[in-house]
């Protein structure tokens, strides 16, 4: 019973994915990709697009470096244990 249910799930997923892909090709969803990049900016006024942003905040930049540092430390410490055992 497990395999038939899994196959139904797998098959319906595959059919949906292929159908979506075919629809997107036929409806030209992959054309004009450069215009698509700008869609989230639509509706903004020229002033809003040109407004001068705030200056870089040093503390926020440090925070991002802390996250990178913590991730790198976890990665390297684990690597040392993996390689030495």
């Amino acid at each position, binding site marked *: 019973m*497990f395999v038939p*249910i899994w196959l139904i*799930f797998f098959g*319906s*997923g595959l059919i*949906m*994915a292929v159908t979506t*892909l075919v629809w*997107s090709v036929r*409806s*030209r*969803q*992959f054309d*004009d*990709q*450069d*215009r*698509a*990049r*700008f*869609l*989230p*900016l*639509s*509706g*903004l*006024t*020229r*002033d*809003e*697009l040109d*407004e001068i*942003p*705030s*200056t*870089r*905040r040093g503390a*926020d930049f440090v*925070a*991002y470096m*802390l*996250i*990178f540092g*913590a*991730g790198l*430390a*976890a*990665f390297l*410490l*684990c690597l040392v*244990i*993996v390689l030495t*055992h």
Partner: protein
Amino acid sequence: MNFLLPNEPGSAARRFFLSSAIWLLVGVIFGLIGAIEMVDPDLFPAHEHLTFGRMRPLHINILVFGFLMTAFFGGFLHVIPAVCRTKLISERLANFAVWFYNAIVVAALATLPFGLTQGREYAELIWGIDIAILAAVAVLIFLVFGTIARRTESLLYVSAWYIGGGLIWTFFVFAVGNVVWQAPHGSWMGIHDQILLWFYGHNVVGLVVTPQAIGLAYYIIPRATRTPIYSHSLSLIGFWMLIVMYTHTGTHHLLQAPVPQWLKVLSIVNSISLIVPVFAFLTNVWLPLKDRFSRVFRDVGAKMVFTGTIWYFIVCLQGPYHSLPSVQRVTHFTQWVIAHSHIALLGFGGFIAMGATYYILPIILKRDLYSRLLADFQYWLMLIGTLGIFLSLTFAGLIQGEAWLMGEVVYRVLPELKIYFVVRGIAGVMVVTGAVLFVINVLLTILRKTPPLPVEGSEAETEVAA
């Protein structure tokens, strides 16, 4: 009727955001109780419904289905009409979804502490609640796809792909992972059940939280920084790669179990391959900001979403790394994995959910946040708290892994871990405090009566197409 199911544009999104903030607070309080119990297991000796075994599933389910999903749903109700240049298909139905979905989370809250559970990790909710969640997601699918069908913009922006796909995946992954056709226990037999369970458990992050969070980030970061993404084609390659690669990664949780070898190999290969869609997304949102990085900090919501992408980078380097059998010798069944899941759901999904709330809520309400200062303070509390949880649990996990490889017995290792659990508890207090500030800021932003600000883009529309 008008209060319960108003037709006012943005009302459902606003209510989803408010409920998300409240569920965040409730969920992290349960998490803090669980964290304290790791230091003092007999904290509530006379209250079995407050023991760690009840707190942990409550913490996870409230945060995934209460906090994250409601924030994402609120975001969809704004983003989908915006990128499709149309109105939401039915604001009243969206408001019905708000009440229905919140009733489901209340039902989870009313069952799990009393031991009403299916006992499968991440899939603890009882059958009736499972079916109600599927019904609620079906309503959201109708709202999103109904709105997409009415669009006046012919091209679908990548956010719509991820949000639509994410909702479909949520429905199927939830139904299959919870084995909902096997009422009332919702489980299969033997190792097949574990394969289904980890298909579900891993895909809660990969095919439920990830596409929904990415869909929002793809809209918020370009709009807040006034900078288009690097390549829309690349974003769609990332989307289709996610479909192909993510489905079978869950079995990397079962490398030590008697699962067919081909499935283990497939799960590892797919886990490593996920680096491609991850970097497709990160390239797309990070690269255009190389000369405009300062623009991220202009809006506190955008800053939180951007921070979520950095956590995503860390999470998605760790994931493929510890899917390798040689790494799992050290990390499996240790606190390392708990650290990883905290930065996935709180660091990545949570920061994007909170950022989406702070970015979209003022646009819907047409007024500023109640307090930018409060939001910044909350950001730092949450960030330091999440870092504290991540580092303390990672170190605890590596000590556990090292000790077990050396043949050390568990009862001699546990005292070594206590200090890390204390640090985790302190970090948890910071997260809870941040959640309190979040509720206050969101609530007062909604309740405050101030003259409306000029709405973004309300003046003569600008042609921004290249």
